[in-house]
């Protein structure tokens, strides 16, 4: 784990500063950045002696340090930081949840597809029933209900609406879990698939 896990343990902060002992001046290069200059001002205000060297030798060193750094190096460093993020327990948990949500969404989508196929089959049956039972719609409705194993409402031609509803219901607990821990990109993708 990190060297500094116990962040609230104030006493663990190394207290090596000794106002009476540390009297040697710190010699800093002149012409540094804004932050460094403000730190020097702060040090002066607080009795820490600082000497800013502006000799030509220092200027030469500063000039060398100003050499441009290739752009791709910056990006590679940032990518490395981002890569190691995935080992954060929180991120591992989120990734697992997102994966679970994705799997659930895929499962739900598959179920929905199956249901749709069943509905289509049932719909065909209804049509046949309506077509066949010219004498009464009630008989056709009963036949459709039996064929699809679902409500008469669905059987009467609204299957497309009912199927996604079911799929969404199946996916709901996992999506909610992904919502509770953000970054559920996979879950979102799963949702889209359902639509």
């Amino acid at each position, binding site marked *: 784990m990190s060297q500094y896990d116990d962040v609230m343990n104030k006493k663990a902060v190394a207290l090596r500063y000794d106002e009476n002992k540390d009297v040697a001046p710190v010699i800093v290069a002149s012409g540094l950045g804004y932050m460094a200059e403000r730190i020097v001002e702060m040090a002066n205000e607080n009795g820490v002696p600082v000497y800013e060297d502006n000799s030509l030798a220092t200027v030469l060193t*500063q000039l060398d340090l100003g050499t441009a750094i290739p752009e791709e190096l910056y990006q590679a460093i940032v990518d490395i930081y981002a890569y190691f993020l995935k080992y954060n327990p929180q991120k591992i948990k989120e990734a697992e949840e997102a994966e679970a949500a994705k799997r659930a969404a895929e499962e739900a989508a598959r179920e929905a597809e199956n249901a749709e196929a069943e509905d289509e089959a049932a719909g065909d049956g209804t049509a046949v029933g309506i077509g066949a039972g010219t004498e009464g719609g009630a008989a056709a409705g009963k036949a459709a209900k039996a064929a699809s194993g679902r409500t008469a409402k669905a059987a009467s031609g609204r299957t497309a609406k009912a199927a996604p509803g079911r799929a969404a219901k199946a996916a709901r607990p996992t999506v909610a879990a992904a919502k509770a821990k953000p970054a559920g990109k996979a879950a979102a993708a799963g949702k889209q698939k359902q639509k």
Partner: protein
Amino acid sequence: MSNILKVTTPTVGYDNSINNKPSPSQQAEDLSIKNPVEANKVGRADGRTESGNNDGGKGVAYDSNFGSFVQSLRDLPKLNEIMSKMIFGGMANIVESGIGKGTAADIQAFFQMLEMSPEKLNEFLKAQMAGANRLQGPLFDVLRQIMDEATTVELKAGVLDLLKKYNDMSSGKHILENIKGTLEEIEARMFRNDRDGLERLAMRLKQHSMDANAANTRLLKEQIIPYMGKYVADNRELGKLRDLVTLVAFNTARYESGNIDNVVQAFWRLMDFPTFRKHFKGMTAEGFREMLLNVDYDRAAGKNELADKLLNIMQAGVKGEAGIENREAFINVMRSMLVNESVYMPLMHVMLPVILDGVPMFSEMWVDPDEESGNPGSDERGVKLLIKFDMKDVGFFDMMLYYEKGKIDMLIHYPEELSGHESDIRDNIRKIMSRNKLELEYLGVEQNKVPIQVSAAFPKIFERRNSINVTI
């Protein structure tokens, strides 16, 4: 390519370095009474001698400035240790300690700003790098090129003189602040009547601007410094106060040197050299002056809201607003930062406090953009970086890179907890490098046992290859 894998701390002391001498603290502890080393000589009770080299015994360490630097490098708590603690804990202990409302608001705003995505981190990293050195950008690239091409000492000295004046000009505000601070310190040491006189004079110093430079310089040179000189003479103040007056005189010289007219003159003198002229064809003195006037020097030096917020928090912390314990932590941060800006540390130093995609992280970087390749007989140069980062709940990493012409050597030390993931780390680092069109020549992935020391990564710090010999 240099061999970055065999990093060792070079043996110090062979180049007149005083590192092989005991530290003052060690000597202070060793106060045991010893027999006189030489019967003919009156020795000290603790057996130390002035020179310390005639009998192989301990000498009184008249530490050099480099010695003090080495001592600080060793003794000061590491910046990342303190900063990681602060960032990981959201500075909760500081807020709890009853810090002022303004600072608490600064802390809140600071942490909001730290939250960033990897894309934003890239921009932040570049901004931090830009803020670590003033001599970056197209103008300085040309001047670097001229320095490489220059065959005469006069031209090189002229370019350095221009840069020195530019540095003084761009730091004008900072130098004036230092002068004002020193004047306040002097006032505190003066008798009341004279103090009032100095206060009145100091109040006439104008806010820094290019136009105010000449008036301020005149006031300092013609009235303030002579006034203080007279006080020193009248009161025979030959101690600290006289030293402070000398410091004001030194800073006044720097402030005067940073007058825009001096910078333009230094530039114009260089136009006499054909090597210089060919790079600035068509540039007039007036055009150069206009260019200088159009620069926001604070911004160019890396001033941004995040830096200001952090500085405000530090200022409050150093003043003790967050309690004594925290004050010492802040003072240590301040001193660690100063050591990293030392003339004996010829490296760029960058701090990256961030909350990357919700995970707090503190990273520190030391960069030498002009490092020798290290191969015998080769004069190739590349970029060498030492990166340390601590990621909350992941661990502490050390990374060393050497980049040269699209090729890269790399060494990663990962925390113990990731020991089962070594091959995964290896594969992903390779992928990252190839995605960024970098040819990975060597990749070392090891478990972090001992953190890589800055002086081990950049042996030239101890070898003093390009450090400056400063005497005060």
